[in-house]
């Protein structure tokens, strides 16, 4: 938006000319009209920093806030001298753009009196009088505190992300099977989680889950589930009992006293390599895929997600398989990434075809491939993929 305040700019032009000429920014009543004094008062007493630049980039006036920050000595100097890092600054380029009459907004780092960095968010408005640009009015907000808080939060989220990644199971390799997984949160941390445990000599339990929502709240719920899941899987063993306990856990902990409903979808699978059987319960989760003999069988959902209802009954399904076989488990963030994301079924077919076509295809490789090809999603989602290779 090109702002031309005629009355204001006439006064500003005079201010600019006057300030440039006499090197001071105070005006007596004779020198200024009442209107100009009002604008001057507004400029001087603004809670934000402000300065006037001439069309060569020299600071011809600055308000009290700016004086407090960078000292009055900067008056008469080029704006480059107050930039914290002139080399990497884009402000010189933006200044040229502003001289073309454009109002610009941006971020910059300037120096305070001690030379310390001050982060600002600014708006520069061209001062135009009789179609002639005479300078720029720059108003800026000191956002140093906000920036520092953001960095602190980012650091904490980075640590949280490392913690979350560290609780995901590492690749398990035995004589009979190999289990691997890959997780990419939509933000630093997220609500997806997968774990696997060897239950005895021939049975392995694998759980993948997806907590509603993304970010910190989903991650907290997922970590709370993580804290109980190993003990539950090893102690209860039976899929229906494990799901029932997990349902109770999330319901009691998060839904009994909360105004909003928290829930997660989950697919728990037990692979029995001795009897060549797979037992599973899918609770509101995208289907898992059993691949064998060039065919795919889907492990479909048979109950609502966990946390929806206190008394949900979970029924275990069983499939027999032939060696070699693969099981692919994923969260809906992966199927939503498909280029054909209008239909979940079509997206799952794409996943099936990819793994059918390439027996060696790994989780990380596939997720990266999908991420590279994906179109902009409506809402970015956490992505998890687990592959069980039964030899």
């Amino acid at each position, binding site marked *: 938006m090109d702002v031309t305040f005629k009355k204001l700019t006439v006064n500003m032009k005079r201010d600019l000319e006057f300030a440039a000429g006499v090197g001071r920014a105070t005006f007596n009543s004779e020198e200024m009209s009442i209107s100009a004094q009002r604008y001057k008062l507004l400029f001087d007493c603004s809670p934000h920093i402000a300065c006037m630049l001439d069309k060569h980039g020299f600071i011809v006036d600055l308000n009290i806030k700016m004086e407090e920050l960078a000292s009055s000595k900067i008056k008469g100097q080029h704006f480059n001298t107050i930039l914290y890092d002139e080399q990497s600054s884009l402000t010189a380029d933006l200044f040229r753009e502003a001289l073309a009459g454009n109002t610009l907004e941006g971020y910059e780092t300037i120096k305070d009196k001690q030379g310390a960095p001050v982060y600002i968010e600014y708006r520069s408005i061209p001062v135009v009088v009789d179609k002639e640009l005479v300078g720029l009015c720059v108003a800026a907000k000191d956002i140093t505190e906000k920036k520092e808080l953001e960095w602190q939060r980012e650091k904490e989220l980075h640590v949280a992300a490392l913690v979350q990644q560290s609780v995901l199971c590492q690749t398990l390799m035995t004589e009979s099977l190999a289990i691997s997984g890959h997780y990419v949160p939509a933000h630093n941390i997220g609500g997806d989680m997968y774990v696997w445990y060897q239950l005895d000599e021939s049975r392995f339990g694998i759980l993948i889950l997806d907590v*509603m*929502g993304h970010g910190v709240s989903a991650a907290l719920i997922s970590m709370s589930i993580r804290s109980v899941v190993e003990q539950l899987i090893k102690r209860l063993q039976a899929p229906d009992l494990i799901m029932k306990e997990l349902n109770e856990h999330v319901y009691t902990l998060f839904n009994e006293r909360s105004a*909003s*409903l*928290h*829930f997660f*979808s989950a697919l728990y699978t037990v692979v029995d390599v001795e009897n060549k059987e797979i037992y599973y319960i899918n609770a*509101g*989760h*995208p*289907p898992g895929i059993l691949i064998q003999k060039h065919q795919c069988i889907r492990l*479909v*959902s*048979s*109950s*609502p*997600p966990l946390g*929806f*209802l206190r008394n949900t009954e979970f029924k275990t399904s069983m499939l027999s398989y032939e060696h070699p076989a693969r099981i692919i488990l994923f969260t*809906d963030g992966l199927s939503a990434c498909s280029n054909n994301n*209008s*239909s*979940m*079924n079509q997206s799952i077919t794409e996943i099936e075809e990819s793994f059918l076509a390439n027996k060696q295809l790994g989780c990380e490789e596939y997720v990266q491939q999908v991420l590279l090809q994906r179109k902009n999603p*409506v*809402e970015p989602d956490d992505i998890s993929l687990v592959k069980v290779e039964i030899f």
Partner: protein
Amino acid sequence: MQIYQRSRVTILDIKSEITIKNSDLFRTTMQRLLNHPSLHLILNLEHVTYLNSSALGIIADIAIKAKEAEKELVITGIQSPMNEIFEVVKFDTFMKIFSTAEEAIDYFEQH
């Protein structure tokens, strides 16, 4: 999002997709639907092409609260590909789903 009455039934028509941007508005509108004196509530999704997982949670939450208040919330007009999501989350195990609002009204009239 529009709430209106048809005979003894209160209908909430959703006219847009539900994303993170309007899920709070969806929650408060669903709460308004629940607070309506009518015992028979319809959530009509025939114009909805996308809803996120939070919206699913809100629907389930209100359906459960409706039951606790001796009311009934049903869903109508789920379009493809949304029907696949509802199939996965098994909403039909704890609430009724109808193809059209007319079918749901007929159901309520018989009860």
